[in-house]
């Protein structure tokens, strides 16, 4: 990015304002920090993807013939740890949220620019811990670190991995805190809460979870480290601990963390659909409050991960019914997105393909969540490939489709260049097909009873596993293509105009890429975020 030729006109923007590595590594500019994060999450996504490729290769045959059991266990653990904690959680908030929240609210930067940079360094330090573990020989606990396996039996580097996630968690807390304060304190004159773009609402809800939930995983992992390192008994019955306590504490964070991953993606999709339907989102207030409802209810459903772990049947019932309640706001969002297209003026651009792909995959992911919330059904399905398929439909089909959609949508704004529409549409379609081929067979595998985290499996499961592995190779190619044409566009892409999509939110009212201070003059907002009928959106005052 640093080497990209600046746009022909010599106008200064945040990319070419200052030069040299130091100006990037010590920057306080939220837009440059977005790019630092983009490099970080892209690296970890690629790394986690390599592990996924190895997992799918191994599972192409029932026997354990590519790697041995210990290696396989480390592969899926590293895949999960890297994808969840180092890619999915920071992906949209720290990259797109960082770039867009100040722009969307007409601010010059986030509330605490130095803290913003600090959170990137903390994230990278956490990431380095995980990389060190990788080079030392890995960890084999699964990303869920269930005790007492992780605290007393695993031979992997549990302490270093735990500390890595512990550290990365602070990055997440600081980002969330920064966003909450920024959204409260730095909105442009006239920008009331109900004039905010829904992307901002989604990030506000996400930030609440980050600030309230992440300390719990930090405490949990710290207790795990204490038990493993110093044999202080919290979870291992051999030391007088309770093995299920860990699961309660882990999921108290990790279920809301699912919403840290999906809510920002929902925000992205809302922006894309409204822009490419040229229509105000249907049910603005419903979409806004459903984000908040998801964040709040998300905190009281963790027990649905423990239906078979000896938790009382009555507790199971409470968690089951609450899990259905948290599903309703998601359903509301899906219906509102669909209704937004009704009588719109729909353009099938690349971001729109990703957004519509998101709706399809998230709908399947969400509906299959209803299977798992049902007690009697979950007893059969939990810990099988059905769960794997379900959360990949939500995490990959949802969060990553949203991330890629968002990257394509705001690419012209971030880098001031357009990419190749033909290639980008083809790759969006390849990803959609590859994704479904990879994960749909896993629903069937799960109902047939194939447990997750199995290195070798009975031969009757092979055909579906081969289909899944074939799909994964298509999916892998689908992810490589954008990597190529997006890099290409940095140097050779056509110069992007300030508002290439005809969108109405504030970030499109400034130049592409924006100047360091975002706006020449602080905008004054006089109407709602999505006003397509009026020519003038912002009166500059």
């Amino acid at each position, binding site marked *: 990015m640093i080497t990209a030729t600046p746009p022909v006109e010599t106008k200064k923007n945040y990319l070419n304002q200052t030069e040299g590595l130091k100006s990037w590594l010590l920057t306080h500019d939220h837009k440059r920090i977005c790019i630092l994060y983009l490099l970080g999450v892209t690296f970890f996504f690629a790394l986690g993807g390599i592990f996924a490729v190895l997992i799918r290769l191994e599972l192409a045959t029932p026997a354990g013939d590519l790697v041995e059991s210990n290696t396989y266990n480390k592969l899926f653990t590293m895949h999960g740890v890297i994808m969840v904690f180092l890619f999915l959680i920071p992906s949209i908030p720290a990259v797109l949220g960082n770039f867009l929240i100040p722009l969307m609210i007409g601010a010059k930067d986030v509330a605490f620019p130095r803290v913003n940079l600090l959170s990137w360094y903390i994230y990278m330090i956490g990431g380095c811990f995980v990389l060190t573990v990788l080079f030392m020989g890995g960890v084999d606990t699964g990303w869920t670190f269930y005790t007492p396996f992780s605290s007393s039996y695993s031979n992997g580097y549990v302490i270093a991995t735990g500390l890595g996630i512990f550290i990365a968690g602070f990055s997440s807390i600081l980002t969330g805190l920064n966003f909450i304060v920024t959204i409260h304190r730095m909105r442009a004159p006239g920008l009331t809460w109900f004039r905010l773009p829904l992307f901002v609402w989604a990030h506000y809800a996400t930030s609440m979870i980050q600030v309230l939930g992440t300390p719990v995983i930090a405490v949990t992992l710290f207790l795990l480290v204490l038990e493993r390192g110093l044999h202080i008994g919290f979870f291992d019955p051999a030391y007088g601990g309770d093995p299920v306590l860990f699961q309660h504490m882990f999921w108290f964070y990790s279920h809301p963390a699912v919403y840290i991953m999906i809510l920002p993606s929902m925000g992205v999709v809302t922006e894309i659909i409204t822009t490419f339907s040229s229509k105000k989102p249907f049910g603005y207030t419903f979409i806004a409050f459903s984000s908040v409802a998801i964040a709040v209810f998300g905190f009281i459903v963790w027990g649905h991960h423990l239906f078979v772990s000896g938790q009382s049947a009555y507790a199971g019932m409470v968690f089951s019914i609450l899990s259905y309640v948290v599903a309703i706001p998601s359903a509301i969002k899906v219906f509102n997105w669909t209704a937004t297209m009704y009588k719109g003026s729909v*353009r099938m651009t690349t971001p729109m393909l990703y957004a519509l792909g998101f709706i399809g995959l998230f709908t399947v992911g969400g509906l299959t969540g209803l299977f798992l919330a049902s007690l009697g059904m979950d007893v059969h399905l939990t810990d099988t490939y059905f769960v794997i398929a379900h959360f990949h439909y939500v995490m990959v089909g949802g969060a990553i489709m949203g991330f890629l959609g968002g990257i394509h949508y705001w690419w012209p704004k971030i880098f001031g260049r357009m990419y190749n529409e033909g290639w980008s549409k083809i790759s969006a379609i390849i990803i959609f097909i590859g994704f479904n081929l990879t994960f749909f067979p896993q629903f069937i595998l799960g109902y047939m009873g194939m447990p997750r985290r199995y290195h070798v499996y009975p031969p009757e499961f092979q055909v579906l596993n081969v289909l899944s592995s074939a799909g994964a190779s298509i999916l892998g190619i689908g992810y490589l293509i954008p990597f190529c044409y997006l890099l290409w566009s940095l140097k050779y892409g056509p110069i992007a105009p300030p508002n290439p999509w005809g969108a109405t939110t504030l970030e499109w009212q400034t130049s592409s890429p924006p100047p360091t201070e975002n706006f020449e003059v602080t905008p004054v907002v006089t109407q709602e975020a999505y006003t397509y009928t009026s020519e003038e959106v912002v009166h500059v005052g």
Partner: protein
Amino acid sequence: MGEKSFQLFPEAASSIAGQVDGLYAYLVLVSAFFSLLIAFLVVFFAIKYRRKNDEVPKPVDEHSVGGMVLEIVWSVIPLGLSMIMFAWGASIFFTESRPPADSMEIFVTGKQWMWKIQHNEGAREINELHVPVNRNIRLTLTSEDVIHDFYVPAFRTKTDVLPGRYTTEWFRPTKVGAYHIFCAEYCGTKHSGMIGTVYVMNEADYNTWLGAGSGEGSMAEQGESLFNQLGCGTCHPSALNKQNGRCPNLNGLFGTTVELKDGTKVRADESYIRESVLYPQAKIVAGYDDIMPTFKGLVTEDGLLKLVEYVKSLGPKDGTESSATPAPTQTSTSPQAPARPANAARPGQPIPGNR
């Protein structure tokens, strides 16, 4: 089981399997309907309302009565449909959580990476479980190390197997055959090798199999010799030792409510007895002193199960104990069980009505 190279639906071989499959069918139908509805609408709108000129469409006023009605409709209908899912799933779960009183009892100990199974009548097996068809089977499970999970897909049931406590799982096999046992909770290196087979046999074959089993006597009998070997009878009054001891009377104890020194009450179930052997100081019975030494490290999980069975098998109490009333069934892990006469457990003979 293994003979078919490809299948799309698991065998249904337990009384609960049909119910789970019925719920599954409902869930698939609802999901398919909404997925296809959304997919159809998205594609239809994308084509019908594709941009034909640069004209910006008129906004649809969602504050209108129609918009509000729509929002309510698409909130309330999914809520209603999902409440059916909840109630249906909960009712199956409650059946699954409550082993019928006439269940045959089998004990399962998980350890990295094998399943050790003991039958009440004394037979023992590893990674294999032989059960008679059309009988309610109740498993009591525990782990020697990490968390495992005993999963039989053909029965649609699984339960976590925890170190340091007992969990239960029950099923009623309805079809003779051989079915997978999987460990479903990740437990380390050979997790995927911690598998086994349930053999569902007809009653006659099962009795033949059981008769050929171990000659070590029933679980309770083995528990009794362990009880004597460990010297428990020197303090605890029991079937053999009737005089008042320094420790609580174990006769007829199982299934009753015990009053503790601190005034709280606790039900004498499997977990309570296990805990009292390993951590005697944790719950002191009212009127007694904290004098019992721990047997932690001296008794294996298998041995503990035998001791528990022995205590269960002890006949009615002598009447010297503090007030003890049977407690109602409450949770899956502690089903109500009337104390069984000491002579009920005989090798080679499944005992109806023992649980």
